[in-house]
């Protein structure tokens, strides 16, 4: 792994490479010799076409290749972004998702012509249900946040179907992802926060106090965002159910549990998976993700339409007639191409490989924690698949967690997630995933220890970082005060 090797020179925008009248790509001629003006009403036509760039093809390629070189990415070096599970994205997954039998099919083609795609979705559903210990699933949500939303909508529909309409509060621990409260608000519910206990886990006393006849659900992340298993999850589920509420699990951290334990066995009623975290599908610079939602039997009638049904003769069809369904989340069936990648991954891993994956993820995170905890105290312990360090001890040297993150970039590593979860001051949330060798973990740990030493002796090395990246730090506050979000001629 190398530090960024090139001169930090800004790349012009594609629009700035454009010259009027330069030829674009040739497109097929219409099948008859007519023009747009011959077939479209004059009143509907624009006087001038959109001001898109005019750049030769090879310049377009050079432009985006040059931009690509300015990115850190998983195929370059460790990307220990906590909660995001930046594991290796197997190359065969990419090839499978691009098979013409998958990319070339129209979503409105008759079921008979898309049996392969439907079979893949059905089988993946069965596998994910088994991994989660749940009874039914939808693959439709396009990301984790949309999965959460689906889950909360399902739970709301369940309460409503029983005439239980007074519930309007979702309980969310203070360690939760921001999407949990944002989702609850979108569903029209108010959020009742509960403080985590001294161990960083759910405080049962606080939970009891928060529960009541107005509660829709508890949204619980397990393992929690500090990377620890909620050891009292069965008691938590019982308390929640006794209050007539349901238990929703944010499955962002399932990489610690696959093949080890099933949320369905904990008393979880609904949960989402992030295929782009646990099941190796690429993050794409911020999507596409996929957030399947698995539920217990009693929530199945509310799942979004269509669902994939397997007939007795082995054929698959999309079923729309589901009178209690919450509706639709996606224009079609969700991020199908992402499902192909996850299917390919599980096929390769098999049942043993799935368990090895969780073991490897937890082993790597614990090893890293053990290597650096002398300099980076972890207030809630080492965790499972990730560890959360508190960087406040560097404050006395004038160094913040952000400075540690920026110094790491100079060594060619991506930074951990910083300032999350909110229950840890100056948090550094580190998730190496199972796809890191001991050597790379050692290099990362050595670098972290070196940086801890520098913070005490030469803090300017941190506060002035990064220096060898394509750009240095930005004044983000100034950018937000007078936002420039598009190029103009």
């Amino acid at each position, binding site marked *: 792994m190398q530090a960024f090797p090139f001169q930090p020179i800004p790349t012009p925008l594609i629009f700035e490479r454009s010259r009027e009248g330069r030829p674009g790509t*040739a497109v097929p001629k219409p*099948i*008859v010799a007519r023009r*747009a003006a011959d*077939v479209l009403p004059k009143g509907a036509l624009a006087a001038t*076409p959109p001001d*898109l*760039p005019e750049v030769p093809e090879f310049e*377009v*390629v050079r432009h985006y290749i040059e*931009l*690509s070189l*300015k990115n850190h990415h*998983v195929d370059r070096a460790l990307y220990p972004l906590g909660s995001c599970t930046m594991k290796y994205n*197997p190359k*065969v997954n990419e090839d*499978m998702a691009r098979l013409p*039998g*998958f990319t*070339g099919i129209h979503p409105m*083609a008759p079921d008979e012509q898309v049996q392969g795609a439907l079979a893949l979705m059905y089988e993946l559903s069965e*596998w994910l249900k088994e*991994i989660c*210990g749940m009874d039914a699933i939808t693959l439709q949500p*396009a990301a984790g946040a*949309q999965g959460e939303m689906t889950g909360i909508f399902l739970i709301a529909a369940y309460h409503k179907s029983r005439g239980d309409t007074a519930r309007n509060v979702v309980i969310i621990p203070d360690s939760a992802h*921001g999407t949990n*409260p*944002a989702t609850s608000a979108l569903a029209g519910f108010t*959020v009742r926060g509960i403080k985590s206990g001294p161990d960083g886990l759910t405080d049962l006393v606080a939970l009891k106090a928060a529960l009541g006849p107005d509660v829709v659900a508890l949204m619980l992340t397990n393992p929690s965002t500090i990377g620890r*298993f909620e050891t009292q999850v069965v008691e938590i589920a019982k308390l929640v159910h006794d209050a007539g509420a349901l238990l929703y699990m944010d499955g962002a951290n399932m990489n610690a549990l696959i093949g080890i*334990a099933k949320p369905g066995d904990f008393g979880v009623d609904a949960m989402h998976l992030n295929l782009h975290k646990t099941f190796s599908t690429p993050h794409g*610079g*911020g999507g*596409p993700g996929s957030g399947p939602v698995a539920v217990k039997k009693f929530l199945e009638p509310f799942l979004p339409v269509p669902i994939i049904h397997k007939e007795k003769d082995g054929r698959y069809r999309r079923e729309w007639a589901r009178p209690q369904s919450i*509706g*639709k989340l996606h*224009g*079609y*069936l969700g*991020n*199908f191409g992402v499902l192909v990648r996850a299917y390919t991954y599980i096929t*390769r*891993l*098999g049942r043993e490989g799935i368990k090895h994956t969780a*073991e*490897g993820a937890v082993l790597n995170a*614990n*090893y890293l924690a053990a290597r650096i905890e002398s300099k980076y105290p972890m207030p809630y312990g080492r965790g499972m698949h990730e560890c959360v360090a508190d960087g406040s001890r560097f404050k006395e040297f004038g160094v913040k967690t952000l400075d540690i993150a920026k110094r790491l*970039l100079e060594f060619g590593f*991506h930074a951990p997630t910083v300032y999350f979860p909110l229950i840890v001051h100056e948090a550094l949330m580190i998730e190496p995933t199972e796809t*890191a060798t001991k050597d790379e973990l050692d290099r990362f740990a050595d670098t972290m220890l070196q940086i801890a030493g520098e913070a005490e002796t030469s803090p300017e090395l941190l506060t002035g970082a990064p220096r060898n990246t394509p*750009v*240095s*730090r*930005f*004044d983000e506050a*100034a950018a*937000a005060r007078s936002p420039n979000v*598009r190029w103009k001629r």
Partner: protein
Amino acid sequence: MSYVPHSEADVRAMLATIGVKSLDDLFASVPSGLRCGELKGIPEGQSEWDTVRRVSALADRDAALVCFGGAGLYDHYVPATVDHILRRSEFYTAYTPYQAEVSQGTLQVIYEFQTMVCQLTGMDVGQASMYDGASACAEAAILAGNVKKDRRDIVMAHTVHPHFRRVTETYLHATGRKVLSAPRSADGTLDRARTKAMLAGASCLVVQQPNFLGVIEDLEAAAALAHEAGALLVVAVNPIAMALLKTPGACGADIAVAEGQPLGIPMSFGGPVCGLFAAKQEFLRQMPGRIAGQADDHDGRRGYVLTLQTREQHIRREKATSNICTNQALLALAVTVYLATMGKQGLRGVAEASAVNAHEVYDRMLKLPGYAPLCPGGAFFNEFAVTTPKPASEIVHRAAQLGVLPGVAMDRFAYPLEGENVMLVAATEKRTAEDVDRLIDVLRQV
């Protein structure tokens, strides 16, 4: 198999450093009663070759059809540049650009994408993408509701994609907001007289351009109608059509959304695709999702950052403008590379060929016995609705067995629309004269 890289010696050394005896000890926090046994329903692991065989066998079961189906997703050609850039590890194995200094590639792409979305729609400001056109439409309705706080319901033209409607209803249902359906005229355009009465108390009017029946709407009139009633105008567009038609921005729309799939994204059974979202400047701080903005670094160099993050869930939590976090960044890259490759003239060529080809298909199809226009007099772009001599789903089913997807049966959506004897037919620049001959021949047979 797994992608865990350790030798037994590695594992022993690591466990010793951790201070435990076995891998199992690392899971001591999981109560033994909750540990699961073998995942019996999942097969044993496979070699890469066996995996390829297994997955390819599924892909081989799907039929390659000559595609005249549209209804929001179209079979346009994707130039080779797009997938070559998408396959760059630097783009597809990165994540949300949280560390701007090592994410300038992704951030500049988002900024260029936002600009192109504005250029296509004629709007002032864009964002980093939504999951798809349907959820972009739902988020536009939410934005309108947040801006027009005293107005609860929204009015959506009957001729908006039924899945945009169903998704928007699903998003709004929880907060008790209704999606009212505005009727169409005989020519397929919005019935403005009857819509006017519905708009009192509505936060926005949503129309589609061209609409779901393929008909070109008068956006200027729709904008006037919405604004007179104190509502916003949201327009869902086919982005290819924007190379020829007046843009929502030029017609006075407040928000424009689109399914971005026609711009360089394979149909891929409906996903992943890409939602486009753009608005007037005044709504910038109410917009959902990520936004890239230009900034100067400490050395005075121009670069890009995620900006206006105080709108977002990770900062604002339950007060965020949306719950969206991960979006469709890689597909936004596809759209950006597509538009850069096609350029001003190329996109116009695609639009023109699609429109001309669709009109040729229309002329030929109407000569067949029993086929008639659903919306006589309605001008269309790349797609049109016809009434069929027998149920459209039967025609589609039988034609598909002969290798042609002749269109989409209108009763096959979340809502049956316009009856069972109606088919929606589209053409793109990929359809050849031979394809059209084959379509007509197949329709004669079925």
